[in-house]
């Protein structure tokens, strides 16, 4: 299949939650190296709050993204509230009228999320933030859509692009956020946001692939 039903999307959200929960400690460690060590905790708090409120409810993929985004935004604060809140909410808005999600719709949703983010932060590719994961992931999906590739193939390619993007942050000097004050000292380790973004996109893609098969 090349599409899944938007209304079947709950399990995708739940997989994203599991991805963050399983990596809480790891994300804290990554953030601890050049940030303040709370990234795993912040993300886990928001995603777990979503889980506890919505595990027993029915919701579509876009509804789930919207609710998760709103929780991050309104109840978590920090940098992650506005950043992931904006990405998720804007992605949800772009897809909320769709019954079926295909490569093209997903690409448009994530592009919309990224565009929303870039309205509030100035970070570009190369600045050692989650933009370094998200931008190549979105681009990969867009290319797959143009080429008319299979959804699963597109998702696997996106995962690779996200992973490469994440890894690319290792040799970068941070330009935004807490670690930007380190200058050259910020080199040599992954960016925490780029890492969590890769975890989220990977969990999402894997859950979609399962749904598609």
């Amino acid at each position, binding site marked *: 299949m090349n599409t899944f039903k938007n209304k079947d999307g709950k399990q995708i959200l739940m997989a994203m939650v599991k991805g963050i929960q399983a990596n809480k400690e790891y994300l*804290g460690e990554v953030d601890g190296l050049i940030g*303040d060590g*709370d990234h795993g905790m912040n993300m886990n708090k928001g995603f777990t709050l979503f889980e506890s409120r919505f595990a027993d409810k029915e919701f579509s993929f876009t509804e789930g993204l919207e609710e998760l985004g709103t929780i991050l935004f309104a*109840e978590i*604060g*920090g940098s992650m509230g506005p950043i992931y809140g904006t990405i998720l909410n804007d992605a949800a808005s772009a897809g909320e009228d769709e019954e079926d999600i295909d490569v093209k719709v997903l690409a448009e949703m994530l592009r919309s999320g990224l565009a929303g983010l870039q309205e509030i932060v100035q970070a570009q590719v190369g600045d050692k933030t989650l933009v370094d994961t998200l931008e190549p992931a979105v681009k990969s999906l867009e290319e797959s859509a143009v080429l008319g590739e299979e959804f699963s193939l597109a998702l696997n390619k996106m995962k690779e692009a996200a992973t490469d993007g994440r890894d690319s942050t290792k040799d970068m000097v941070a330009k*935004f956020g807490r670690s930007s*004050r380190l200058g050259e*000292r910020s080199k040599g380790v992954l960016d925490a946001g780029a890492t969590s973004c890769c975890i989220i996109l990977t969990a999402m893609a894997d859950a979609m692939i399962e749904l598609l098969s």
Partner: protein
Amino acid sequence: MPRIMNNPDDIVDEMLNGFLKAHADIVEATDNKRVVKAKNIPADKVGVVTGGGSGHKPAFIGYVGKNLCDAAAVGEICSSPTAAAFLDSFKAADQGQGVACLYGNYSGDNMNVKMAVKMAKKQGITVKTVVANDDVASAPKEQCEKRRGVAGEVLMWKVGGAKAAKGGNLDEVIAAAQKAIDNTRSVGIGLAPCTLPAVGHPNFEIKPGTMEVGIGHHGEPGIAVCKLENAAEMAKRMVDVVVPDYPFEAGDEVVALVSGLGATPVMELYVLYDEIECLLKEKGIHVYRPYVGNYFTSMEMMGATLTLMKLDDELKELIDTPANSMGLKQN
């Protein structure tokens, strides 16, 4: 780190409960449990708001009170409050004369404040902002818009709060607070790290026998790691970072604020202040008003910050205005 706490995830809410009970003469709760407001805000004044992550006592809620901030938004430990909390703080502080939001330069706070200001505008509340960037060690002077806000925020609140209390309009309050922070420079020296309660181990290291010069309030590394020095040497190092940056010069009158970072005994802050005051005197810089104590901390970090603010007649008058909050009581 042995702590007095229950579930670390609840520490901010429980701290707020205790704070509100302990200081019911000064502050009160609002409908948003992450917003604390001053009791009996005088009508018709400009509202003064701040906010930031928790774990910095007395900052931020400890500066809500008479002639200081009217409301503060409360975040998780070391994490910006939500935009919603900032918005509700604006509402709690607004008396129809607009709101001055005086906060520190951290990316989370910048984003959340920006969004809250936008939302407030839609609801008819004018909010203007001043972003503290007093921490010399956090970026070179040419990029001072990147610098963090640290203990200098206390002086910004003191000045902005006093200006609002004296009847200044929104632009005047913003101008006074902006002047306060523009005239202010800080530097910190860290001697031991702190631990996020929910993480359970320090998230950075200061090797025994060393110290981190220019450390931030969340352990952000500074400009140099050097061997642990004595009080006289530390004082000289701090003065040598802060004084030339502004620069403070012979004949200047200043506020000197020496704040502990949390676990350093207050006794040691006085030892440090004694050295600093002597160095400033040698340079012909006169301390018009000293503040020495735990004014802006980072849980159980050890070390201290030095903050200097150059005074003019307006700033003197505003610094001398009485104030009453948990963190600052002045007659």
